[in-house]
């Protein structure tokens, strides 16, 4: 189902942030809005990664992955207790 959204963790290359952005969160937001008008960030990550998590369709994720400054768009993984 191409319309089904799942959570992705989007890893960005902070050193490639265009100079027109003062704040990395604005850059993250701009990258997200370029593939989806409705998607919102669940979290932004500052220490473990440079990036954010969001809900996207498969096509949106593939489109985002091709953009400059994107290192990877990783689908959510569900872990279990041991």
């Amino acid at each position, binding site marked *: 189902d191409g319309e089904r959204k799942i959570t992705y963790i989007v890893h960005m290359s902070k*050193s490639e942030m265009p100079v027109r952005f003062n704040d990395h969160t604005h850059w993250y937001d701009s990258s997200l809005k370029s593939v989806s008008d409705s998607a919102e960030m669940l979290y932004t990550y500052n220490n473990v990664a*440079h990036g954010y998590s969001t*809900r996207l369709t498969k096509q949106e994720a593939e489109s985002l992955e091709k953009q400059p400054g994107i290192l990877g768009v990783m689908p959510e993984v569900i872990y279990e207790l041991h």
Partner: protein
Amino acid sequence: TTRTPEFLGLDQNANLFPESKTASEVVVGVFDTGVWPESKSFDDSGLGPIPSSWKGLCETGNNFNASNCNRKLIGARFFSKGYVAALGPIDESKESNSPRDDDGHGTHTSTTAAGSVVRDASLLGYAAGTARGMASSARVAVYKVCWEGGCFSSDILKGMDMAIADNVNVMSLSLGGGTSDYYRDNIAIGAFAAMQKGILVSCSAGNAGPSSFSLSNVAPWITTVGAGTLDRDFPALASLGNGLNYSGVSLFKGDSLPDKMVPFIYAGNATIATNGNLCMPGTLIPDKIKGKIVLCDRGVNARVQKGSVVKSAGGVGMVLANAASNGDELVADAHLLPATAVTEKTGNLIKNYLFSESNPTATILFQGTKVGIEPSPVVAAFSSRGPNSITPEILKPDIIAPGVNILAGWAGSVGPTGLAEDTRHVEFNIISGTSMSCPHVSGLAALLKAAHPDWSPGAIRSALMTTAYSQYKTGKLMEDIATGKPSTPFDHGAGHVDPVSALNPGLVYDLTVDDYVDFLCALKYTASEIKLVTRGNFTCDTSKQYSVNNLNYPSFAVSYQTGSGPITEETTTVKHTRTLTNVGLPGTYKVSVTSPGKSVKVTVEPESLSFDKVNQKMSYTVSFTASSMPSNTNLFGRIEWSDDKHIVGSPVAVSW
């Protein structure tokens, strides 16, 4: 926990460990199902002010407010956005939208790592004693990232992100799932960032044993923990009508069986379902079960659920027989009806009786808690096993620690079985898993961090690994309960943790961030993949020869399947280089090698290392020369450096 402090020598050697004032500067972050703050294990009596470096906080929410934290439980956060986005709003009638633990698992793991001392602890009278976490003076910060529907990577990553900002010193994650390249592995990515900040990350190895290649959390910057048994048991005899008694284990407490033999039936003969022998819900025929003890086979559904199924069908007791994969491992449960768990072998003997007797009868005799069981520890059958499927040249698990029948704190809102119909309230529960062994190591790492604040996470892990043991005091090799045979480094890694020896290891194999980046270069990761893991602009030097074999790891895994290329000649030599750092007094260390076998020649150059001062580093090279062997052949050995006061041991695994 009760018993593990004695089993690990913590209580007998309390004077060797850091003063509580130093230990109380260390913060253990636990990523799990949250916390039951009313547990006596979070009593903060005697603890001084919260460390000034602490930046975390106690978040408020459903059934939880800031006053639930104190000088012991100094942080509590919850992360549910990923969970809610995937599965919808949290049903607050079932789970608290807050750091509160409605499951018990998170309270168990956090109190195991760093719970305060609690006298007269027990589960329904079993495992009675004084309970304490491994680092009983350390502070606890909980990060609730697991919910009824699972632990979502977006939530875990944010939890780790915050824990780094909060300034935890040790991270403990008793969770996992699947394996993937490190740049796709969220826990590996989070752990790398933690390691960069000097935080030791300890993770459970998984419960997918005894199958090979079943490990989780295998990144080399993670400390991967398998599980072993304690010297404690909870015997409960299955006594049959033919006069024979068979040993089993149980944590049942309640109304006993009638003081006479009662009818006994095999579940597989009281069902029309093909899998009725497993006592799955709705599969047993009540008319055939009523008033009887039922023998169920282990597997598929939870052990405690089988007891509940028998009880609701009118059964009065249960004998639970292991499957072949469980070997002789007996896991005790606080069943809702009189029940005992028996080995596969015993189960077969009991089945022979059931199938040969026209009116079989039985009863169960509960014998309480016994300690001093030998041999112990033995590797738990469920503990996940190597080889490492991602990087065969890195031996995993790293170490084993107590993980079978562990008593620790529990949530007040959930019974000891975790079943909805279990309305009992207990302060402590006894459960098993690598989830339980991981926080033991997290707490011990916190103790080492307190004793040696300047040691890196790699040095702390090295101390734990090189002082671990894989032989009993009798000299006999440690046993694997899945096979009844000696366990191997693919089962126990460097061996069973020995915290007293780890305090003073003599030498350590230290590891820096740059060493791990070189390792990623050796894996031939692209610049983007390296950046995904490290977030930094590291570039691999095209003129430099990187080798996975040169990561300064405290163990050796020699793989002739990958990395070394095909065996084209009669013998192939693989070289590993290591650097030892002196963390003790000046001394001369000499090497000794236990050869993996005639087909592998191991030479160490130089054979002696003299250290004049503390923090001095010296390197050595090990050459493994092996002839061709059939694939899937594994041989094991050991390399030890000793100055007669310390033994710095490393396991060796050679595979084809």
